[in-house]
């Protein structure tokens, strides 16, 4: 496998279960034990004030809230993929998540587009989540 030259995420201990689940091709978010709200990105407190949470699976489906088509990438490794889509997606459970939309032409992406998470094992240690169109 060629060396992975894109940015590798810094993962503090609080966030590790999210990335560990991804390696097993599952998406788990924090769910508040007091109010039941899912939250993302990982954080130490629910907006309701409770620090108590569980990691709980989500369906991995949602719709595009907003997006951009990137032509000018941050580094040469990303530039190879340009033009590529970065979308903010409202997941069915409520939180928004950001990733690329793959599996379609960038010009086919629209706000409201139904998408689902797919997994991309970019290194043996790192699995990323991306979105693809859902019919």
């Amino acid at each position, binding site marked *: 496998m060629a060396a992975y030259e894109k940015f*590798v995420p810094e993962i503090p201990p609080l966030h590790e279960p999210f990335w560990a689940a991804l390696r097993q091709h599952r998406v788990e978010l924090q769910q508040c034990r007091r109010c039941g709200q899912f939250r993302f990105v990982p954080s130490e407190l629910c907006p309701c004030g409770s620090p108590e949470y569980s990691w709980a699976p989500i369906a991995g489906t949602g719709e595009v809230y907003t997006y951009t088509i*990137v032509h*000018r990438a941050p*580094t040469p490794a990303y530039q190879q993929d340009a033009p590529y889509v970065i979308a903010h997606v409202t997941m069915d459970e409520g*939180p928004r998540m950001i*990733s690329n939309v793959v599996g379609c032409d960038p010009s086919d992406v629209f706000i409201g587009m139904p998408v689902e998470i797919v997994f991309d094992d970019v290194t043996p240690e790192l699995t990323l989540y991306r979105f693809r169109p859902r019919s």
Partner: protein
Amino acid sequence: MPQFADAAFAGIAMTPQGDLSDRDPADVYWEVVQEALADAGLTLADVDGLIGDAPPGVGIRSALPGGAMADLVGHPLRFQASTSIGAAGQSAGIGLAALAIAHGLASVVVIPTVAAGGGSGYLGADRNAAVAHMARLGSPYEYVWGTTRVADYAVIARRHMYEYGTTEEQLAEIAVAQRYGATLNPLSVNGKRGEITIDDVMASRPIAEPLKLLDCCLVNQGAGCIVMTSATDAAAQGRHHPVLLLGWGEGQSYLDPCKAPSLASFEGGRLAADTAFGLAGVGRDEIDVAGISDHFTIGVIVELEAAGFCATGEGGSFVEGQATRIGGRLPVNTDGGFLSNSHAGSCGVFTVIELVRQLRHEAGPRQVEQASLAYAHGVGGVSQVQYGAVLGRA
């Protein structure tokens, strides 16, 4: 009771903007600080307060900026403070400087910014290094996907267009209006490139759709400095018509884009503007000229809305027909702004400098006639943290 208006903008200065990679950053820092002091009729011996950055150098200077300055001016300072409004951090410091002066904590406060020298990162002259550096400022849940600062604002633009019908041509109005101002500003980076049209903006290459090259700020170096004193001292110097800070406020809203309730409007801007206008006792319709953070054209539209110059969603139609050009309904960023004047360092300093020129009636060919009240609005990050300030001609 002490109030903001007890403090005045006594001195301003900026260097030529562009590529200063062959200059020592510390030399440029002292050059612009001394030039601003001279503009106020003062010298380094008079300085007893500092907002933000230390003179560039080694060791612990950056952690203890006031002490670093004391080393070099040869006397202790009475006041140092910093704000955390990103690229508007130094300019937002005008509020803290005014409070310090009004309460007798300091009498001469300098507010400098400098980007010079051969280093890389956002203060360097290397565009690729600056873009890569800025791309890493977000969380891992952003940068792993190949986000850039342009992409961060592009998603705001896209959502604003979706919710309110804002068009790419309306965004282009901002770039066109500000380039005109830059052509009248010999210190600007882009003025010599001449005027542009909406068609030019629309035809410029896409960077992160819907934002195109001419929707984006400059990447350049340069330096600027503001000096604040008491209004009484500024009037006694009599070098310029005094310009006062009438009101000021901050708003700090959601940092993580996934946690922001909306990516089409930001509560922080509303909080900042409401506080600033409230303290000043001034209405939006009284403002003659504005300086609004314009890292990207969409920023001006979103911030004009947040600051209350128009309703949320109406920023696009507000700027149509060159309404923000010199001579328009509300001239904005008359020096060219970050798009066409300068985006060096803590570039909000240049926004305030231009408003002070306007209120002194020293803006030359860019002068907004009879300007007596001005509004400054700055953002940090991707608009999450904002400040607003009302300035008045005494």
